[in-house]
């Protein structure tokens, strides 16, 4: 290759083999998506497709993609299609296929051939070695297609022939667990779709530098798809499980009200027709609001001191290490601090204000860290420009530096609120009230402010009362109190979904705030 490696400058957009390769990439993508859906139980591998069992359909398609990929490699090697392969597929691909084939060889040897003891290592090592040689030694077009296609053909045939059928299972000896087909089949299909998609994409790019680029692109997209799939799957799971509980007794335009939503507006008192979690929602909202009110002014203030006034040096380094350590402190430790230190100072009983302060202390380090980073990221040109106009340092910070840092500060608060809103341990130790509180016990913080003529002039008994909160109620329902409501499991999932929605709506508020200030700064 040292002599001449020039290719045509302009590629004809769609030749026949490129269409075929693109179709194979598409097929692999579809297989990957279907397998992902099966893994998340959105589709079932036992369902028949047009009269044929799903497993067999998947097997056939996987085999097809494997054969196609092998065909591409051969066609390229024999010069039937115009590609520019390099000398070898490279060491990374070789190591990956070695690992894949080592597992395949070992599993076939121990499970199918039934080799006992360490004998399974022999076929495993042999398969790995062959795969390594087959990937690294031949030219790139063979090296990156043959091992990939062979994986797909092996998987496809074992599915197609019913060797691994929908009733297949594999007891794992040492782990006291059994792998069933509804996990193994999607996993196998995903693996082979990943390698055939990669190999077909390389063919589409004509191997060489462009082929590697396209191959990596497809791999990355499939992995991102998997991550999104897990995320969406998780949320869908909670939504599907929680919706019946959340919407129990839900109705529009009934009883003269616009919306009747008993799960959100009722308590769990004896007389409530549909048991609800109103007190817990109110508790969570007040806890988060209080924690933000404690943490944001102190955190931002400390960040201003550290970023703008303190000399960067040993002291600021120590503070940085301390705040990082504080952020990674387990929440139960914060909870114990709250229980042992705050509760005796606030009426000697669990109270909202003790929980607010505890959660505020938990939130403080993250607000401090992110605000400090945001302040340090504000360009010095702004400070210089302001100083050259004769504006004092504090006015500069207030009018130029802080506004420019607001988006970063908001990001920190969003992340922190997401964490503290779902915290259970500190609430358990500092705030937690009854397991199934009635509506009347919801914390009426706004209505309980009382003025008095003597210090401290303002008091609020509601803040000094215990209260429920969503994560705490969920925890309590699971550990102790499943008997108090008619359909406890449905009720608990409803609480979980509500907690998710409350946290997501805090996120939404934060993201909208950040968006607003970013627009204002940059337009």
């Amino acid at each position, binding site marked *: 290759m040292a002599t001449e490696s020039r290719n045509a400058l302009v590629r004809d957009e769609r030749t026949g083999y490129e269409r075929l390769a693109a179709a194979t990439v598409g097929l692999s993508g579809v297989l990957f998506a279907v397998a992902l859906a099966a893994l998340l139980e959105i589709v079932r591998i036992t369902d028949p497709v047009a009269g044929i069992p799903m497993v067999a359909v998947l097997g056939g398609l996987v085999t097809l993609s494997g054969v196609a990929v092998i065909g591409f490699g051969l066609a390229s090697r024999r010069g039937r299609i115009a590609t520019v392969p390099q000398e070898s597929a490279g060491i990374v691909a070789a190591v990956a296929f070695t690992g894949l084939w080592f597992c395949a060889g070992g599993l076939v040897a121990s499970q199918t051939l039934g080799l006992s003891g360490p004998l399974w290592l022999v076929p495993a090592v042999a398969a790995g070695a062959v795969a390594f040689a087959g990937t690294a030694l031949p030219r790139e077009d063979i090296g990156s297609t043959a091992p990939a296609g062979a994986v797909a053909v092996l998987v496809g045939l074992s599915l197609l022939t019913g060797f691994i059928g929908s009733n297949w299972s594999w007891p794992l000896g040492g782990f006291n667990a059994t792998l069933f087909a509804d996990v193994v089949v999607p996993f196998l299909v995903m693996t082979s779709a990943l390698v055939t998609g990669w190999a077909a994409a390389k063919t589409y790019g004509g191997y060489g530098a462009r082929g590697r680029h396209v191959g990596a692109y497809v791999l990355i997209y499939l992995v991102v798809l998997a991550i999104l799939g897990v995320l969406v799957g998780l949320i869908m799971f909670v939504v599907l499980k929680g919706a019946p509980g959340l919407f129990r007794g839900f109705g529009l335009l009934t009883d003269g009200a616009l919306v009747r939503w008993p799960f959100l507006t009722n308590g769990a008192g004896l007389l409530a027709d549909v048991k609800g979690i109103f007190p817990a929602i109110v508790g969570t909202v007040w806890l988060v609001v209080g924690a933000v009110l404690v943490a944001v002014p102190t955190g931002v203030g400390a960040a201003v001191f550290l970023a703008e006034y303190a000399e960067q040096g040993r002291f600021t380094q120590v503070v940085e290490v301390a705040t990082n350590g504080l952020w990674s402190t387990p929440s139960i430790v914060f909870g114990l601090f709250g229980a042992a230190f705050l509760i005796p100072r606030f009426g000697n009983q669990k109270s909202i204000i003790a929980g607010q302060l505890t959660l505020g202390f938990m939130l403080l380090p993250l607000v401090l860290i992110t605000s400090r980073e945001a302040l340090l990221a504000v360009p010095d040109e702004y400070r210089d*420009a302001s100083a*050259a*106009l004769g504006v*004092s340092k504090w006015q500069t910070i207030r009018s130029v530096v802080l*506004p420019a840092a607001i988006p970063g500060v908001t990001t920190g608060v969003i992340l922190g609120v997401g964490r503290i809103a779902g915290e259970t341990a500190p609430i358990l130790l500092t705030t937690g009230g009854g397991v199934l509180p009635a509506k009347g016990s919801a914390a009426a913080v706004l209505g309980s402010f009382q003025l008095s003529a003597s210090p401290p002039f303002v008091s609020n008994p509601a803040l000094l009362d215990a209260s429920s909160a969503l994560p705490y109620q969920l925890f309590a329902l699971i550990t102790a109190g499943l008997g108090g409501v008619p359909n406890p499991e449905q009720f608990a999932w409803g609480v979980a979904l509500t907690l998710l929605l409350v946290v997501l709506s805090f996120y939404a508020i934060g993201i909208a705030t950040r968006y607003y200030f970013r627009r204002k700064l940059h337009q």
Partner: protein
Amino acid sequence: MSQPDTTTPNEGNRTDDRGLTTTAGESREEGRAEWTDYSFAGASKLSVEDLEVHYGDDHALKGVSMDIPEESVTALIGPSGCGKSTFLRCLNRMNDRIRAARVDGTVELDGEDVYRDGVDLVELRKRVGMVFQAPNPFPKSIRENIAYGPRKHGDVRTGLLARLTGRDDSEEEEQLVEQSLRQAALWDEVKDRLDDNALGLSGGQQQRLCIARCLAVGPEVILMDEPASALDPVATSKIEDLIEALAQDYTVVVVTHNMQQAARISDQTAVFLTGGELVEYDDTETIFEDPESQRVEDYVSGKFG
């Protein structure tokens, strides 16, 4: 370098025996006092005497003395690292913002030493404004950028409190914004979008906005640190025209590494050469046509630097 070795006395000689080095041929130190002794007809706005600046161990500026006449353009030229920007930043005490910097000597603004104890930095920087190399508008609207200084100094009062107490200066502010933008030759380009973010302007417009922002505070002296070096030729020529126009009412001091620019816009030119020394200071014409120092002649004719 084409100049003979004898014109660059070695380091040891110079520091041991300041100003009295006698090497064959031209001695920088001997002539220096004479070359920098520039006399002019008008009044002097800024008068610098024996200015020394150290950054830690680094001796950045060595005994610079010069008088800057009012209502004129003074150009400071020289190769990189010669101390011309350091000198400029001493004139409004921006070097105070650098912790390691130590400044000795006097800088008199209308006869008052700005490095004396008890000098009000706010007042000093109101009177001696500064424009930086890279345009640095705040991420605010054009109007807010211009009104920023006057608002912070309490010269115009706006906002809720001002409206409630009936002392709202919105109209004055409006006039000030228009006047400053007109002075900076930017008004016609931005008058319809004063509430747009200043970061949406082009680089040249941003730099003129920065000049307008500086003018809005009502300075007497405007310091410019290579104000056009980040701009394209068209924007540069606009800035140059602006500088010449500003010299009618303001004392302008411009640092530039572009000798043609200095020749075009300035009335007098000070040449700094490596080592933080002011070598020659005279009418721009004299500096570029017939400088007294051989090194300055080499520099302005492009033989080094």
